Each structure stands twice: as structure tokens, then as C-alpha cells.
């Protein structure tokens, strides 16, 4: 198998795509944002239970169907944001975008991204960047919604 490809589909990523964490509806969600990638048919709906008083993302869940990169990226994301504050989630979002678009030099990729750094290979596959960012668009949508309810964001692209 090819080097680039192996890098794109590392074991951790394949594992998350096959057994996505926090997968499933979140009945007591305060906000749900769905996003879809019209080119390939990926569809993701991300739900958060936000405790506004404590400024905490108390619970997180997602549903949908998507390619392995999208599933893995979203699954990894959920493991990183659970229990975090809005501000922490926003920082993560910015760091992830910097990494995935190649705007941030590989050497500067923050350690705090953890296993998400395994997705850095995606930058070599421009059309797959949309896959890797779809769940993050939904996260951005959730954080931007001040009210509660269900919303949707448009097409996934690199411009988070």
C-alpha cells in the first residue's frame, strides 16, 4: 500500500471510523446542527448538551453516515470536546483548521490536538479536507447558535 494512503488511513483513524465514539442521538441535547457534504453525500448531525451556567459542553453525540475520514474526524472531535468550555472548544476548532488546511506549519501543530494530529495527512488530499471538516462545521454551528434547537449548516469546506 502507498505511503500517503497509509498515512491517511492510520489504524487509529480506521478504528474511529468503524467504531465511532459518542455515536448516537442525544435525547437531552440543547442544540443540534446537521451538516452535509453535497459532493459525496456525507451527512452528520452533531448534538451538544450545553450547560450555559457552568459554561460546559456536558454531553455530546452525533448521528449520520459518512466516509471513514469524516466519521473518524467527528468521532475524535467528540472525545476531545466533551466536558470542555466553549472557549476551549473554539480554540480546538481553530487549531484543527490550521492543521488541516496547512495554514499552520506541521511543526507548530499543538500537542493539545492529541490523536487529531493523525489527520494531518488529509492536507495532501484536497478533496478530502471537506470530509475531515464536516463535523467541525457542525460544531462551529452549535457554538454559534445562542438559542436552543435544531439548525443546519451548508456544505463542508476548509474555511471553518
Amino acid at each position, binding site marked *: *500500500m*502507498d505511503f*500517503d*494512503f497509509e498515512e*491517511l*488511513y492510520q489504524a487509529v483513524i*480506521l478504528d474511529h471510523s468503524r467504531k465511532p465514539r459518542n455515536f448516537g442521538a442525544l435525547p437531552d441535547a440543547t442544540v443540534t446542527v446537521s451538516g452535509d457534504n*453535497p*459532493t*459525496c*453525500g*456525507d*451527512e452528520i448531525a452533531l448534538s451538544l448538551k450545553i450547560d450555559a451556567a457552568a459554561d460546559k459542553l456536558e454531553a455530546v453525540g452525533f448521528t449520520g*453516515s*459518512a*466516509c*471513514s*475520514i469524516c466519521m473518524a474526524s467527528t468521532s475524535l472531535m467528540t472525545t476531545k470536546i466533551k466536558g470542555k468550555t466553549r472557549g476551549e472548544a473554539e480554540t480546538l476548532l481553530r487549531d484543527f483548521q490550521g492543521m488541516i488546511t496547512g495554514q499552520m506549519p506541521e511543526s507548530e501543530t499543538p500537542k493539545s490536538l492529541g490523536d487529531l494530529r493523525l489527520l494531518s495527512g488529509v492536507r495532501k*488530499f484536497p478533496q*478530502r479536507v471537506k*470530509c475531515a471538516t464536516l463535523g467541525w462545521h457542525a460544531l462551529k454551528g452549535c457554538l454559534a447558535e445562542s438559542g436552543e434547537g435544531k439548525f443546519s449548516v451548508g456544505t463542508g469546506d476548509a474555511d471553518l
Partner: protein
Amino acid sequence: MHDLAKHAPTAPDWGALRRDFPILDQTVHGKPLIYLDSGASSQKPRAVIDAISRYYEHDHSNVHRGIHELSNRATAAYEGARERTARFLNADKPSEIVFTRGTTESINLVAATWGERHVGAGDTILLTELEHHANLIPWQQLARRKGAQLLYVPVLGDSGVPDPAKVDELLTPAVKIFAFTHISNTMGTINPAAEWCARARALGVATLVDAAQSAGHCPVDVAAMGCDFLVFSSHKILGPTGIGVLYGREERFAEMPPYQTGGEMIVTVDWHDAKFKPAPHGFEAGTPDVAGAVGLHAAMDYLDAIGRQNIFEHDRDLAAYAYTRLSELGGVRLFGPGTDRAGLVSFLLDDVHAHDVVTLADQHGIALRGGHHCNQPLHRKLGVKSSARASFYFYNTHEEVDRLVEVVEKVRAFFNR
């Protein structure tokens, strides 16, 4: 057997023809390029590329408006392409050919003019479930605007064949227009266009045939087919991007209001009123894509020198071979008819997303398409989000299919490890 499949006398030298396509002589990710995405857009032979350059190097000017030599040449080139297109389709007259940007614009034009005038509240517009978004959304928009009803001939599951019983049931005099694809870009289904047009005509129903996938792949004869409108894109039949064709039967064009307005399409203009030319110029506002028409002309010459019947059989052979080999792999879901299919194959591997297949294939130099191929509702009906598609043209070979099958096996192995 399907009537398009009559046997042709001579076999072209496919290897030599392939060498006419400069783009195919390259490596991608270190592997020889295997281009299996002609259904999205074909590659261009040297003859087409050079015709465009030559036009700009010798003859370019605006058309119709001028009376100098270059303008005469440009006008002759442009109108010559129209005349060539009429022959390509066996239309009665060049004035039945309108140049547009492509299939999508051609259909939009018909929906916004003929449709606007002839489809009213309660009328029916009939499509099939196979339609590309280009032959679906313009009608959906028209139906919503008019309060008309949009009905679909359903396909029989994964076979991709429109249910014949449903055609009988749905094709009634309440239908104003029956718009359907000749060859499905996802399923490879070849629809019985002549038969459907004849039945529609007997009921007074207008017909539009989406020939985007057929015009460059098999003989297309509007007289034999008996359609009212037929549309295709240059870029899928070896020609340049940016130009396409709307064939309209003379009587149909005559009953249509103008579409876009501006220069070239008027007879007289006053401050508050204007008189418009009839077809074809009345539907071509503004400076047309002259170089595009020249390139399309060269493409049609090239195709007809090979023979579209020959191309049809070549591509079908490849697709049938790919279908058989892929189905032998196991764990592969194949879409479209098992026999009498056109030159493309869509498929899915169990538990592997199409995007992952296409990304891996690309790493091996193979250009496949993955997604819903602008057939989103059809994919939804089949219970999938997307599929992978290999679409063939006469420059593809059996060896390339073998290579595809190898790579698909590798993908399966990789994701099942």
C-alpha cells in the same frame, strides 16, 4: 437485443486513437494515468485542441455583427458548426440547433420558455427517477412556480430500469412534457427513447431527451427518435467546455418566447420595446462561444470518423467486462442493468465508503468518480449516500479494467484487515 447494438463493419485502431489524446500520456502519483471519469467529462484529442488554437491564430472576430473578412470567417465557422451539429443529430435544419453553455443551460432554457408558456396549474411534468439534477431541478422549479405536478417513472431497484408498467400508467394526455435521460449517468441504463417519444407524440405530449451521456457514445438521430427537444454538452463528447446544444423541432421553437435578451437576437429595438429574431439566433443573446463551436465541430468530425456505432460497442464491451469482473469479486454491490448497459459501471464495496475507494484508486493513478453523481434522490431511494463510478470511452482498454479490479480488491483487503 437493443436496436443501437447493430454490428459495425470495420474495427478502428483503438490504440492509435488513444495516442491522439495528449493528456493520457502522463503519470499520476507515479502511476500511469487511467482515466475512468469520461462520464463526468471526456478528454480532448489533438484535433480538437488544435482547431481551437488555429481559430484564434487565424480567424477570430465577433460574428454576425461585422462585414470585414475576419468577421465573415468567424461567422462562417460558427454557422458551419451549427450546420455540422444538425447533421450530427440528423436534424431537419440548422435553425433547429441552438448553442448554449451545456446540457444544464439547454434544459433551463426549455423549462423557462416552452415550459413557462405551456405548463399550467394542475398540468403534469413527467420525469424518470434516473434524471440528473440538470433534468430534475429546472422542472421542479417550474412545477412549483406553476402549481404543476411532477411525477417520476420509478426504477426497478438496483437494476436501474424504469418500470415499463409505470410508463404505461403515467404517460397520459395530462402530461405536458416527458423529459428523460437517454442513458443514465449513474446506472448505465439505456432508455427506449424512440419508443417513448412515439407514445408521447401519439398522446400530444412533448418530449425532451437528455443526451448528455449518449450523444458522444452512440448514434443519436432526432428524426428516428422523434423527440421535440434533445440536449447535450460539448465537453462530454470530446469538445471544449463552455458550449452545448439544444435541438428543438422547428414548431416547438416557434412557440417559445425569448430566453436571455441582448445583442445578436433582436430585429429592432426601441427605448421601450423590442422585436426578436426567430430561432436559432433569437435564443442566442450576446456574443456566442465561437471558439467553442469550432472545437465542437472538430469533435463531431473526429467522432464520426471513428463511427459512433463502433464507439458504442467498444464502450459497452469494456463496461460489460468490468461489470462481470467486479461482480466476481464478491462483496461488491453493482448498480444498473446486468445486460444492455452503456459504457459505465457504478458500484459499492460493503462497508467501505465510495470516497475511500476513489481516494485509494487515485493513489494508483485511476480516476474514478465517487459521490451521488448528481442523482441524489435516486441514491437515497437505493438506500445509499454515494457510489463509485467507472465510466469508459474508446480510449480505455481491457488492461485498464484489469488494473481497476486489482485496485478494488486491494481496497477491500485494506478496509477489512
